[in-house]
């Protein structure tokens, strides 16, 4: 896949970006606390003993919510735009809109990762991933307006004629270069903005085989994900979408 240089949009549709690392062996309680103690100066508020319902899984019978309760820590900055979540089996950094760019997210994650390594050097990893959730807000004149998905996303959905489509969800697994994979999901969503129809482009790019051990190699894989993400995004969106991302903000 060729490398695509990111285009700075005036209204990037990204609502959330996450970098996550899964650990081969759960962190012990005292290790979790030690990591949080070292990170706390960078964040404004720490939620202790946070119990989270984390998993959504696809099954043969369709989408099913799988409850996987884990107890850990959530650290937030004052504006709730940057979060760190330290769970026994995973560490992640998250950024909400307006997206301040990869460099900030990557720096946040690197700090979490290096701190975790200092506290628990022996942990191996089972997955390196990053997830980018975009919401494309498409202006409509009223609720009866129809949106042609193919005008905004390069995906195909071929339905029998005459059917009334109220919503949709597509899930695609992609094999990318160098052992990376992507789960791309696009779906209709409840509009957050008045007089729009919303469609989600959710990209989870990861590698879970032949994982590196050295710190710099792990961070290098994460940087690779950035380029894959930019490339995938540009391939999935159309010029009509790009025009929406480039409208002036009032």
């Amino acid at each position: 896949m060729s490398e695509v240089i990111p285009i700075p949009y005036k209204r990037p549709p990204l609502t959330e970006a996450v970098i996550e690392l899964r650990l081969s062996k759960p962190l012990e309680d005292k290790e979790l606390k030690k990591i949080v103690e070292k990170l706390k100066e960078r964040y404004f508020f720490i939620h202790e003993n946070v119990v989270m319902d984390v998993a959504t899984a696809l099954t043969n019978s369709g989408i099913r919510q799988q409850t996987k309760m884990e107890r850990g820590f959530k650290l937030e900055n004052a504006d709730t735009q940057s979060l760190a979540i330290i769970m026994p089996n995973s560490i992640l950094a998250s950024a909400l809109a307006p997206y301040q760019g990869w460099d900030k997210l990557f720096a946040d994650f690197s700090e979490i990762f290096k701190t975790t390594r200092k506290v628990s050097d022996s942990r191996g990893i089972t997955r390196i991933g990053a997830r980018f959730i975009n919401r494309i807000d498409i202006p409509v004149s009223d609720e009866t307006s129809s949106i042609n998905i193919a005008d905004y996303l390069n995906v195909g959905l071929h339905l029998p004629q005459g059917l009334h489509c109220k919503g949709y969800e597509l899930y695609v697994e992609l094999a990318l270069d160098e052992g990376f994979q992507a789960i791309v999901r696009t779906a209709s969503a409840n509009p957050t903005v008045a007089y729009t129809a919303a469609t989600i482009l959710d990209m989870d790019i990861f590698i879970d085989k032949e994982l590196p051990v050295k710190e710099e190699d792990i961070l290098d894989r994460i940087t690779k994900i950035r380029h894959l993400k930019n490339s995938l995004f540009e391939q999935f969106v159309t010029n009509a979408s790009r025009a929406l991302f480039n409208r002036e903000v009032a």
Partner: protein
Amino acid sequence: MFYCYQPSEQHLAKIPANVGEIDHDATNRPQNIDIPKDITRDRASIITLDENLEERLFSNRSELKVLISQIAMHISSIARQDLFKQIDELLDADGFSEGESLIAPKSFSTFLKFLTLHPQMRRAALTMTNMGTVGGTWRTEAGKLYIEFLPYGKYRTSVSRKENDETEYLAHEGSLKKLHKFLSDNNFSSWFQRVETPAP
């Protein structure tokens, strides 16, 4: 409503010939990054044990700021920072006592939808009711407009308008779409429009 006309050839997903090699058991599919639900859509799913007032206020502020982030691409950074400031002021521990309602996110969502309908809106004086709903007040020389934003895109409004030394009172309620019409029909929209200062 969504539809997809017959996509052109390039839009059709190509299914590989070696389809038999794909694992059709969905339970064996690779798992997504599990973003805890509270940082995507459903903040209520988070359970925090032994929260004190400051913690509950922070959670509420955080919940509302996440909602603002969902429309961040449609408002200016100045408007966003101003909303953050107003939320911090409304939900400040110093002026809050145990038992008071926090701001209902669904009411705040209605306010944000209204904001996206009126991007040129000037700053409202935000207040909250003891039911946890948010209200916005705009004052002009012609009168005062108050809108209470209710959950699920509903609203309640009261207007006092001065005309020939008399004050007329109007009240209205309904869905946001009706509000838009009510404000336009009565020429109230201009009451909360931002006035652009001409360049010197």
